[in-house]
């Protein structure tokens, strides 16, 4: 295999898919860092975000790219509502209860999408996009947008967490929740902030998944395992870990096709998850212990 086919057929698709996982994994890692539970409705929240974007394109006649920021905000706000309705009153109980509750929320979200938009596959745009060809590297315009927007979102999040007062408060609460409270930080506000960010990133991951493949009601559920694998591989609670983890899982999945049938791609995420939990449970960037 020459270098061009390796890049075109394995590396680039892996990086694109990996950035989609990374956007979801950042949310999972943030939710765990602040609230200390695994959020299993994350995949279906991504589906929800993707279909909200679709709704903006069909009802308002917007282009998919114009619908994205609206869907990001709408899903972020919706994530706060989910938290207030389903998770807030479970806060003081053992965290496993919230984790199980999030499975219930996942089912509700998926059913809602199925009732409103049906179970058939659909897409944002019709027709086939021809890839651009740059010195033998073939990349489609929506793949370039996926990468650029993912990078922009990650940079924006990094700046927010390191420069902004409330971003620092989020890191402080992840680091030492009691001391954050003793410093006067209002935990409820930090939790809402976490949800709007995690929900927004989730919508972006669902949108790009739909843009690069197609929209269907189980799309988010299908990427839940690789997204969790990415978060755990990177080290739970570590944003840089979620990004690296997402890219590694995405690339590993594409490369796995060399040795196993394509339908079993998702097994590679499962394999990574198993290996990390066995040999380095804190992940590459030494995250919090699960």
């Amino acid at each position, binding site marked *: 295999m020459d270098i061009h086919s390796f890049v075109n057929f394995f590396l680039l698709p892996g990086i694109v898919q990996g950035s989609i996982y990374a956007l979801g994994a950042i949310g999972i890692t943030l939710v765990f860092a602040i609230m200390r539970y695994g959020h299993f409705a994350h995949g279906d929240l991504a589906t929800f975000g993707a279909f909200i974007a679709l709704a903006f394109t069909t009802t308002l006649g917007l282009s998919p790219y114009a619908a994205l920021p609206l869907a990001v905000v709408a899903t972020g706000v919706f994530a706060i509502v989910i938290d207030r309705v389903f998770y807030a009153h479970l806060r003081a109980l053992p965290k496993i209860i919230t984790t199980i509750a999030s499975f219930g929320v996942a089912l509700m979200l998926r059913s809602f999408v199925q009732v409103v938009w049906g179970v058939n596959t659909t897409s944002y745009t019709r027709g086939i996009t021809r890839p651009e060809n740059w010195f033998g590297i073939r990349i489609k315009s929506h793949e370039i947008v996926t990468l650029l927007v993912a990078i922009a979102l990650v940079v924006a999040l990094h700046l927010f967490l390191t420069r902004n007062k409330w971003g*620092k*408060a989020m890191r402080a609460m992840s*680091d030492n929740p009691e001391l954050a409270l*003793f410093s006067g930080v209002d935990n409820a506000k930090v939790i809402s902030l976490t949800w709007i960010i995690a929900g927004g990133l989730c919508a972006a991951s669902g949108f790009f998944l739909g843009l690069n493949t197609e929209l269907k009601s189980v799309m988010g559920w299908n990427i839940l395992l690789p997204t969790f694998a990415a978060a755990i591989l990177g080290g739970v609670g570590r944003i840089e870990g979620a990004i690296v983890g997402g890219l590694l899982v995405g690339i590993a999945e594409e490369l796995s096709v060399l040795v196993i049938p394509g339908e079993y791609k998702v097994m590679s995420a499962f394999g990574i998850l198993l290996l990390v939990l066995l040999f380095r449970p804190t992940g590459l960037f030494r995250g919090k212990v699960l």
Partner: protein
Amino acid sequence: MTALLTMKNLRAGYGDADILFDLSMEVARGEIVAIVGPNGAGKSTAMKSIFGLLDIRGGSIAIGDTDITGWAPNRIVKAGICYVPQVKNIFSEMTVHENFEMGAFLRKGDYSAALDRVYRLFPDLKAKRKTTAGSLSGGQRQMVAMGRALMLDPQVLLLDEPTAGLSPKYMEQIFQISRDVRDSGVAILLVEQHAKQALAFADRGYVLAAGRNRHEGPAAELLADRHIAEMFLGG
């Protein structure tokens, strides 16, 4: 001297169990008060009850004329009381500077004066301002912890075993800094395991046993009392 922090006949505990019984204390501006006593006497618990971390069943706590009994910690901070826990008292994954910024979280506007003051009190930390706080030595971590609490210019500073596990050199340094803070008009209440050293440096002391007041008075008198020394200070 009129008291700034007043605890009157406090009865408090966790869940169903009472730990403190009829406890009374006072701390005035510009004095250091040490709480000493045997293990399990309720020293740290008494301090936590001031900061709203216990269920209060009776009695009252006030700062100045404001009754703060039953308030939540983030509200008590706004009333001018800052608390430095014994353990987990820094943001270990954040830099020294960010720890101080978090200390100033409730401040509106410019807080560079408070920051300058903290770096003046802890000159060693100025060079380490970009260092991750968790990677510092035990003594320096304690300084970060105190610095964070001082960023709000508190009226009352609560220190839970500030010298636990520190070398004599750092212990002396922490005591000296506490005196400087006291002299700037802050009321300091501290819990100490090293009872003799604490009473040697504090202005007044309370000796606690089984969640009750046993003795109180000027630190030097408590230290000189043979009976107290035998019973509570390890001979």
